């Protein structure tokens, strides 16, 4: 088991190996399809993309007194193309579910980034590891807005590492 503290460095990425369980603590950002479409051309992103982690999620609305609603990963393959320019800007880790294109995986290795998966459909469990949540960009997108999350021991598995490892390979 590996523990990671944000921001993520190149050394952090190199020590990740496929299949390992990772517990993340620190700040991560949410973005899915619609936010990615805007973020790639964004002149003024409200967070430092270099060294960051993006979590592919659109949470349910929280009840009063609850930090965030259910927050499990959405399928990552839909973000394959748009993730490339973000990795070129220094995006280090992506958290989602399911396999992605080979083109994505090669570009990911080239940019020294890695892809993690969290348990899909475990939105209630994962939200219990989120300490705070704040919308920082694209509020009009509702569940698809970009949120800044503080997380403690957020559980993931390494799916693609920089050494060529691929958890989905049969």
């Amino acid at each position, binding site marked *: 088991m590996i523990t990671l503290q944000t921001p993520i460095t190149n050394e952090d990425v190199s020590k990740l190996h496929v299949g390992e369980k990772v517990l993340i603590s620190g700040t991560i950002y949410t973005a899915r399809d619609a936010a990615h479409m805007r973020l790639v051309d964004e002149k003024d992103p409200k967070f430092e993309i270099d060294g960051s982690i993006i979590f592919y*999620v659109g949470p349910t*609305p929280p009840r009063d007194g609850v930090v965030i*609603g*259910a927050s499990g990963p959405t399928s990552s393959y839909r973000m394959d193309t748009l993730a490339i320019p973000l990795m070129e800007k220094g995006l280090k880790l992506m958290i989602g579910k399911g396999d992605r294109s080979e083109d994505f995986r090669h570009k990911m290795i080239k940019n020294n980034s890695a892809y993690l998966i969290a*348990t899909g*459909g475990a939105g*209630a469990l994962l939200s219990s590891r989120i300490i705070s949540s704040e919308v920082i960009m694209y509020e009009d997108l509702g569940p698809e807005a970009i949120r800044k999350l503080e997380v403690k021991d957020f559980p993931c598995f390494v799916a693609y590492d920089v050494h060529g490892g691929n958890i*989905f390979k049969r």
Partner: protein
Amino acid sequence: MQEKVNLLFIYIIIEINMFVWYYYCVNKEGEHMRNLNPETITNIVKESVIKINYELEDSLVSLIRKAKQNETNNIASSILDDIIENQEIAKKGSIPLCQDTGLVVVFMEIGREVYVDGDIYDAINEGVRLGYSEGYLRKSVVNHPFNRVNTKDNTPAIIHTKIVPGDKIKLKIASKGGGSENMSNVTMLTPTEGIEGVKKLVLDTIFNAGGKPCPPIIVGVGIGGNLEKSALLAKEAILRELDDESEDQTIKQLEQDLYKEINDLGVGPMGVGGNTTCLAVKINYFPMHIASLPVAINIQCHSSRHTEVIV
């Protein structure tokens, strides 16, 4: 003169008869038609969508627990633990099972002898609207393929209707996630491809979907009918009781064979490998054209949220 009186007499008799007949019919109808308030339907839908998004049915949870006991892959086993723990947290009622609280699908069987005083489709959509707001569920419906503006209340629901005998209404209500729906497939096979063709199609579809539909999955297969009928059969199949089996021997055998062969694919929970790819396979069939063998595969993720209410 006498003739005129006779005609008048006959006319009066006919009128009286028609009146008696009309009165009888109205009364008969009144006796047999059951009146149902649309608000009753709205309430059922509202309460159902909230309940299913917080609580999985017991039979599903015990299948997942059983899968966990048989799982030999460590990562797979840890994912199954997460799924079990997740439903325990959600059951407490403050956070839904999954962030994708789905698109609502309703299969409605309306008895011929029930009368709903209002628009039943509006009543269902109102239930969705209220349930998704009061239950803190995510609104995941957009209005147009390209404008993609959120309708903000998770309507409209997809509603299928059947007229049946009796004076009851049966509602099968599901919240269907997008991730697993996206991995579904309809293919028009040729009759000569037969049972082997169907098997290959199902196995390829599930293998190619990998971890995207959140395995372990429930696989619904619709065989026959035509293009749209096969898809409906597959959707109805994923709503079947988890422990039932087809009454047709050939289809029952195919369900059992596919269950084994799908798990032998080794896709595993979330695609990480392991013994648990599917929890159940359900196949529904229907007669079809001599030239056709339509096959639809509807994939349901482990977060299978549905219920059935009779009113």
